[in-house]
């Protein structure tokens, strides 16, 4: 993916005058790591880049505080920001805009059709001890990895992030400029969800007991999720107290079920929750289960339309009722 168009657009954007900065990706000088970059003037533009290493959602930076993105020295006046946005990020951004967390005119979107990004943990395991910087590009189902002076061809499935394996929205659904050519969309694949669904109740409980017993309730997933931007998260409050402080099976269960249920009909599938989890919980399974059921039971897909009514604030007289006496 060449970065020429990205840099050219970034330059044009900064010259506009109404945009205070660009939030984008930059390559770390060491290894495979990628960091966010906050560009306020021309000197930093050249650092902007995009590659399959960009396993990070930048949308979260927009919702860090309620009065966000104020212009420096101009309190109360909202600022406009440009942002590099992948397919999943655009769904999250769209949802935030629908929920009035941001208004559309506050963001200038660099749309990036994305074919999947690499799980950092996987590539660092495959190539430990990298000296200096490393680059990765993608070609025809393979990742071309250049590090330590050598080149390697690795099949995508071995390195791609788990949440990217099931991506059905590689192309941004909203953007001001599209930086690369759109990608063919895959059909949705819920076989991994069905596999779990087909297990017995006892087997499922054992599976999740094993997972949740590792959870340390660090709240990293909540912090990283672009759609978790409530000022006063109910899972933190003492009044009313939805969840106790203890880190055990029942409270962890409530934490994760509550968080994923709050994203029913909203989750963009960006996988940030899985990325930041220190104990590698398969959190996207819960979100995708809800996504599958929303689609099958209620014909509801996030980001299908630019404006959509909330899933749980609407109903259809024909909704399923086989569980009702």
């Amino acid at each position, binding site marked *: 993916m060449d970065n020429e168009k990205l840099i050219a657009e970034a330059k044009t954007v900064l010259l506009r005058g109404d945009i205070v900065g660009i939030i984008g990706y930059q390559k770390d000088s060491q290894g495979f790591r990628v960091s966010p970059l906050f560009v306020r003037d021309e000197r930093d533009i050249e650092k902007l880049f995009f590659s399959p290493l960009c396993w990070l959602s930048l949308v979260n930076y927009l919702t860090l505080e309620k009065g966000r993105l104020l212009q420096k020295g101009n309190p109360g006046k909202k600022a406009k920001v440009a942002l590099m946005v992948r397919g999943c990020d655009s769904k999250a951004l769209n949802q935030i805009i629908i929920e009035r967390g941001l208004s559309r005119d506050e963001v200038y979107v660099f749309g990036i059709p994305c074919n999947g990004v690499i799980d950092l943990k996987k590539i660092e395991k495959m190539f430990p001890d990298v000296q200096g910087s490393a680059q990765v590009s993608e070609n025809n189902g393979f990742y071309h990895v250049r590090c330590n002076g050598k080149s390697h061809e690795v099949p995508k499935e071995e390195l791609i992030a788990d949440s990217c394996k099931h991506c059905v929205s590689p192309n941004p659904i909203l953007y001001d400029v599209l930086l690369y050519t759109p990608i063919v969309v895959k059909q949705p694949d819920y076989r991994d969800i069905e596999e779990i669904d087909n297990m017995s109740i006892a087997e499922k409980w054992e599976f999740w007991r094993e997972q949740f017993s590792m959870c340390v309730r660090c709240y990293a997933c909540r912090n990283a999720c672009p759609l978790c931007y409530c000022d006063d998260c109910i899972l933190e409050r003492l009044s009313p107290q939805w969840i106790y402080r203890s880190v055990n*099976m029942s409270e962890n*269960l409530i934490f994760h079920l509550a968080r994923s249920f709050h994203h*029913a009909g909203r989750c963009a599938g960006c996988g940030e929750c899985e990325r930041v989890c220190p104990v590698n919980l398969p959190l996207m399974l819960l979100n995708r289960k*809800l996504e599958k059921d929303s689609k099958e*039971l209620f014909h509801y897909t996030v980001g299908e339309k630019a404006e959509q009514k909330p899933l*749980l604030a609407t109903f259809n007289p024909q909704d399923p009722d086989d*569980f009702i006496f």
Partner: protein
Amino acid sequence: MLKKTDPEIVAFLCNWCSYAGADLAGTSHFHYPPNVKVIRVMCTGRMNPLLTLSAFRHGADGVLISGCHPGECHYMEGNYLARRRIALFRKLLGFVGINPERLRMSWVSASEGNKFSRVIKEMTEKIKQLGPLGLEEE
């Protein structure tokens, strides 16, 4: 701490239909098992599914949400909203290994005292079969 020997069912009943129906069951002497504990809400539309999770966590082995028949909700739409949310949430519960049969809904109108007692009997039977959930001990 008491060790549970009998299943406990927490029932959220809507004020206008199901709560009145349960009341009628009482005054008409329709017997039903004493395993059910009732919390009154104005409308099933008030039922955030996470409240049922809280009930399970506090010892409920089964949760019932009962409201007005579709089209008869005192507040017009609350029961439709509840139906959608509970349908979705049950599936999530099943996915993590909590039997979705533990969370049920029913439509009981104010004149259906008999139906209420039948529903409680049936649900209690089912929960007895499934056994205790045991979340409060985790």
